[in-house]
């Protein structure tokens, strides 16, 4: 929901000189608000921002590279959405009713509708327009009740209420105040199917998604966390037996990979065959490892997990 400045339909000077009179909210995912202090807004707005921005009203960043033709949508001739409003009556008051409805629950909208009230009391006309993005299957403006038979939209829709005149040049940068934004969820309607034949009955009902947890004891096996690159052992093409052998070998190798000295008692007496002699019959000087260890190291520094109790 966007509100811009008073367009001054009786020829008032624009509030923001140099900035095309427009207001837009980009799709919610792309919208970025610009803080007054970051100074990302262009010069013209910056000077205004310091003076004119009311508390709680944020500046929208300008969209030079617009992914969607927002300007085009906002510039649609008044009649293009008129057909949506034909069923419910009048266009601008409907947007106004929509605003007053949300003013009850959104304080920022409430502050904005206050300005509409003042404008009307002072005899000025308002220029509310509506637009929306991404609503192929709605068949109406998203703020209105859906036409019977269409149901609720199946894809996200962004609706706008814009206060401001049409934009002179679609290529111009856009700027405006974003008054408020929110998202809402509409419950789904599903078609009732005949329980026996499965044919659609033409009726719909509002559906909720409940859920249940089912205990199903599946296997605990998981895929290997490695890629196995192998060449044929004999240069011949692969066959199932060779593949099975390869996998068995790999798994065997994986198991052997975990073998440690503690687990091989017999071989462990010989291996690893790394010995240091610390005694010599010939009286040669030797390196006494046990003495070296006892002198040069602190036991606690090695066995850190053994904590001495005070």
């Amino acid at each position, binding site marked *: 929901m966007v509100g811009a400045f008073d367009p001054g339909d009786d020829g008032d000077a624009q509030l923001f000189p140099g900035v095309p009179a427009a207001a837009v909210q980009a799709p919610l995912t792309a919208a970025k608000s610009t803080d007054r202090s970051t100074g990302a807004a262009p010069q013209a707005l910056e000077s205004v921002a310091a003076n004119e921005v009311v508390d709680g009203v944020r500046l929208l960043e300008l969209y030079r590279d617009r992914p969607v033709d927002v300007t085009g949508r906002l510039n649609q001739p008044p009649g293009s959405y008129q057909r949506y409003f034909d069923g419910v009556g*009048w266009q601008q008051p409907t947007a*106004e009713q929509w605003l007053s409805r949300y003013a009850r629950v959104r304080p920022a909208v409430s502050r904005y509708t206050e300005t509409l009230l003042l404008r009307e009391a002072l005899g000025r006309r308002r220029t509310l327009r509506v637009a929306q993005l991404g609503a192929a299957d709605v068949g109406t403006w998203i703020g209105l009740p859906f036409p019977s038979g269409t149901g609720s939209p199946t894809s996200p829709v962004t609706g706008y209420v814009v206060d401001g005149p049409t934009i002179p040049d679609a290529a111009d940068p856009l700027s405006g105040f974003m008054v408020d934004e929110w998202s809402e969820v509409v419950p789904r309607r599903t078609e009732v199917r005949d329980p026996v034949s499965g044919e659609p009955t033409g009726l719909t009902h509002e559906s909720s998604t409940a859920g249940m947890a089912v205990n199903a004891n599946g296997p605990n096996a998981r895929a290997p966390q490695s890629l196995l690159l192998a060449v044929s052992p004999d240069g011949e093409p692969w066959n199932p037996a060779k593949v099975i052998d390869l996998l068995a070998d790999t798994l065997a190798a994986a198991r052997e990979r975990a073998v440690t000295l503690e687990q091989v008692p017999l071989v462990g007496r010989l291996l690893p065959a790394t010995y240091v002699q610390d005694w010599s019959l010939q009286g040669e000087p030797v390196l006494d490892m046990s003495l070296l260890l006892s002198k040069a190291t602190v036991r606690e520094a090695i066995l850190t997990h053994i904590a001495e109790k005070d």
Partner: protein
Amino acid sequence: MPDAIAPKSWNSVLTPLLARAPSCTRLEPQSVTGDPGPGLAAAVHDPLWLLTRQWQFGEFAGEDAGTPLSVRVDAETVSMDAWQPGDWTVDDPAPARPLGDTPLDVLIERESPRTPGLRVRAEAGAALIAALRDAGLNDAATAVVDHAPLDVEPPADDPTSEPGLGPAWTALVPILRNRAVDAHLVREALETAAPGTLPGWLDSADRTAILAVTGRWLDWYRGELAPAAGDSSWVGSRLEHRYSISVGGRALRAPEAGSGRADWWSFDADSTALGNAAAPAPLTYRSVATPMRFPGMPADRFWEFEDAHIDIGALESDPHDLARLLVAECALIYGCDWLAVPLDVPAGSLVTVRTVLYNTTFGETYRVPDVTLAPSTSEEPWRMYAVTAPDKAWDQRAATDERPFLNLNGLVVAPVSANRIEGPALEEVLFLRDEAANLGWAVERIVEDRAGDPLLRTAARHQTSVGNEDRVAEAELDYLLQNSVPEWWIPYLPRVAGPADGIRLELARGAMLRFGPQLPNGEPIAPLGRLLKGADHETVHDSEVPREGVRVQRIPMLSRRSDGTYDVWTARRVTIGRGEGRSGLAFDSAVPRRPAGTA
């Protein structure tokens, strides 16, 4: 040479030999330590090591079990068809009403409307003016402004019974005076005129065009901004909503409902007949078997990072904290091997699952047994989550099963609105206990002002009570019969309720007295807010105001239905308060008189 090998010289050779045996030091890699750190760090050494760890954790162990592929659920749904507002235990309970398209929470919470505040009236009036001008009926618009002006002036009669206007609206008054239109007056004028005619001051040659505009406007104003009175489910003496819905001809009772946001745990099953016994509709649902995932779920393989946002392992629980231990154990040990089956069911129904089947990659089909049927004893099977039947009489399976079924066999899906947008609280009252004064208090924190906006009660108009002083000139002590409390503290006095209900305590609303120069005998101080003004809360059960207090709010709500239409209502909500209060109310005090000029 025996002489050369004398015993003495033997000693000189053997002593150093025996004292220090010839030895070697072997360097051994040590792969096992008592420190769990290296193992937990799970350093990756080589691809074979990755496989090794998987093998060690049993991830390569073959099992004679296929992976579940698809799930089929056969269920029955019984639609909810009626509801009953209010307390059902009273002598004359409200009759049941059919449940229409309106969401249940709107039906429950919607408080009976009254004339809207100035803001709504002015905005609706501006909408009418705008519509008339859009239609080119400028003369009619001017006539409306002249004949139905909004009365923005504060009422002069009794400044203490109305909250007045908040600062936001006060700022608008100079502009709106003689310019704004009171939609309420316009509505009354239009309604008093005969059908097809207009009030005299509005009538002109364009009658048809004006009627077209005012007709649409009146429909909107009546339907949305000033709707007709609904049914109240609010039980003031208990500070809660009470209501029942009917499913299959039986009643589901919702006691102690703080809001209308009903879920299955809001209800108790009751054997009382209510509504119509509708035949259950079959529902078959097939879906791909999806493993159940929840935040903080342990990963079921070794080489996988877990979500660190929720650490169920860090849950602190005492040994007697059984529920918490159960949650942790369920999540950490039995979290895997579960499938999540989303079930699209009609909103407002009782869903009873009859069979659940799943098939696996081995082509086998398994039937998942119902936990409620699992044990073969005569006892009711234990269930943690079920709609209980306090009177033990709800027995859906009585016809097929000899064992009485004490819980409701099914999932209650209440027809509540999907997404509610809540506004700022229009009114807030804090019920609290004051053990020092032996009273209960209802403290008005926020009240709705004349414009319909929330207004801090401290900012609303109030008069400070002036004590009825009769001072003796020279005295050291002043005798104070009673000191004063802020005007927004409304006392509730404990009393024993009538013997008809058995002996119980209740809190009855009283009033402090306001004294002043014109009020030597005092006048009772009335509450300003809507919650305390009416008869709703004249008495409150003593047990409903616990030590921590109760906060009651009126909150504007908005939600959309599936056809895009709107529900706009004001709901009452009950939440926990913020502890005991202390009013400082005291009687019979002797206060040392301070010398003049000291604070």
